[in-house]
């Protein structure tokens, strides 16, 4: 009789565990499409015009995505395990990320552009956070959250360069931005459903609203501070969900 009970309890336990594992399964795929004023970004070769009417090219466009959370149907947020991604226009593999997610239905996602303050003060890191990427300031410890480099004929810097290295994780000019994006249709994640989201990241937004940037006056930022914060406040507006495929 005793053994019988124990066996039943054991079976229940097994089933319970199995169900737990099943619930964890699911993937959300995000593809970042970098654009300038809506047109696909082409490095080096294409001339673009900023909101101030100045022409420019882009040679490098990179940003960190981290601290991803899912927005549940009741608007509460479900934090996902810590993961850091460096989106690099020059590396197409970097632009699609697969995020393991618990099964369920979600209204959208939130993520941070940049690297949270804790990882900025925790010493040597690996993976996307390996300073080998160059997305790290050695003289003033901290990650470059987002980077845009290029040229503009109106830039007063050497070789008409544009250098926008945006960072700073503390104080009033912290460049950290958390972006909530609500999906046009709800996202159902399960063992058999892997929603794919396409997010446009528009470099035009960096220099547009609310802080209009003229390359004639600002062409180089490579320290944390007010200018970096202004750009970060602008690029907060650069993301749009443009496509959702619910497979």
């Amino acid at each position, binding site marked *: 009789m005793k053994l019988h009970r124990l066996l039943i309890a054991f079976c229940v336990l097994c089933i319970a565990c199995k169900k737990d594992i099943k619930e964890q399964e699911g993937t959300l795929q995000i593809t970042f499409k970098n654009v300038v004023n809506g047109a696909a970004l082409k490095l080096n070769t294409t001339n673009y015009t900023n909101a101030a009417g100045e022409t420019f090219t882009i040679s490098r466009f990179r940003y960190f995505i981290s601290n991803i959370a899912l927005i549940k149907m009741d608007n509460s947020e479900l934090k996902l395990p810590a993961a850091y991604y460096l989106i690099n226009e020059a590396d197409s593999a970097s632009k699609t990320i697969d995020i393991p997610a618990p099964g369920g239905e979600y209204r959208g996602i939130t993520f941070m552009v940049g690297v949270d303050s804790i990882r*900025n*003060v*925790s*010493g*040597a*890191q*690996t993976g996307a956070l*390996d*300073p*080998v990427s*160059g997305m*790290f300031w*050695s*003289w*003033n*410890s*901290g990650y470059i959250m987002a980077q845009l480099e290029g040229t503009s004929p109106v830039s007063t810097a050497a070789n008409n360069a544009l250098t926008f290295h945006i960072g700073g994780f503390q104080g009033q*000019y912290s460049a950290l931005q958390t972006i909530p994006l609500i999906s046009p249709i709800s996202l159902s994640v399960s063992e058999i459903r892997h929603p794919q989201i396409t997010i446009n990241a528009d470099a035009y937004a960096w220099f547009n609203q609310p802080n209009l940037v003229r390359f004639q006056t600002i062409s180089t930022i490579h*320290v*944390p*501070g007010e200018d970096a914060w202004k750009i970060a406040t602008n690029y907060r507006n650069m993301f749009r969900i443009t496509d959702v495929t619910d497979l």
Partner: protein
Amino acid sequence: MTRYLIYTACFFLLIWSCRRGSDVRPSGPQPYTLNLPANFPQPVYDLSQNPLTVQGVALGRRLFYDPRLSRDSTISCGFCHQQFAAFAHFDHPLSHGIDNNTGFRSVPGLFNLIWQRDFMWDGGVNHLEIQPLTPITDPNEMGEDLAHLIAKLNADAKYRGLFNDAFGAGEINSQKVFKALAQFMATMNSFDSKYDSVMRKAPGVQFTAEEASGYKIFQNNCASCHKEPLFTDGSYRNNGLPINASLHDAGRMRITNNTNDYLKFKVPSLRNIIKSPPYMHDGRFYDIFNVFEHYSSGIILQIPQTPTVDPLLRNGLPLTPSEQRDLYFFLNTLTDPGFINSKALSEIVITN
């Protein structure tokens, strides 16, 4: 009978435990025990996140002395950080680098780094592990690209073996390099000077009359910033040095963008001070008596004074020649011969 049973059980247990013990062959890195003095505060560096091992420390030491960490394989960390100068650069006011480049600050001594909150004269580096990134990549120092360095190390069979021994199998990455260097740096500790022996009441060790007088002078004039037992409070202060117009060094303000930090630099430790001239962030004083002179009479000579000059120093720290002499004798007791002669920290010649 019960007793017999217990004995038998114990006997078998003994055999069994011995067998298990002999089964476990020593493999993987061996723990390295760091003995720290009881009168020091808790280290800032979290050693639990990078447990020291014999192999890790040895690898860090090799990296520290390997000139291949620089772009043209001429300059190692140890090139500028000389052990006999408490790992400062003896006789060099400003740091040197590849291609005959000169930096704009003096080379700080390296010791007791695990108690340091942040690094560099301006405190721009916030963690011991990433500190080496600055000199390795700075074009005025070792001028190497981090990715290139990692590729060089991965291409080197000897290093692949050493990294495997210290951190287990796998690619060498920057984190392993930095953790190995941090392990070695964590062993660069100085707390066995005569001063320490006196404080620990070691039998037969006493200050001489001059040293004892110098210690009093130190306590009355210097100790609030050069706080014992580390001989620094880790703060940033403007000690009233006139700005060096050719270097244009704003100090801590460069990091914080705060005008209140203009011309502020880290308070350096006074340990091993007599062994590590020249002094100040730009190495402008070759002799410790020049430093005394600055504090004694140099600060008040400046008109107008920079507003950020430390309030404790605005009126200078007047010291008579005999007080300066006694202070000099006291500072000599902060030299740690065991540290600057330690065989465990000394340069290794890398031939392969």
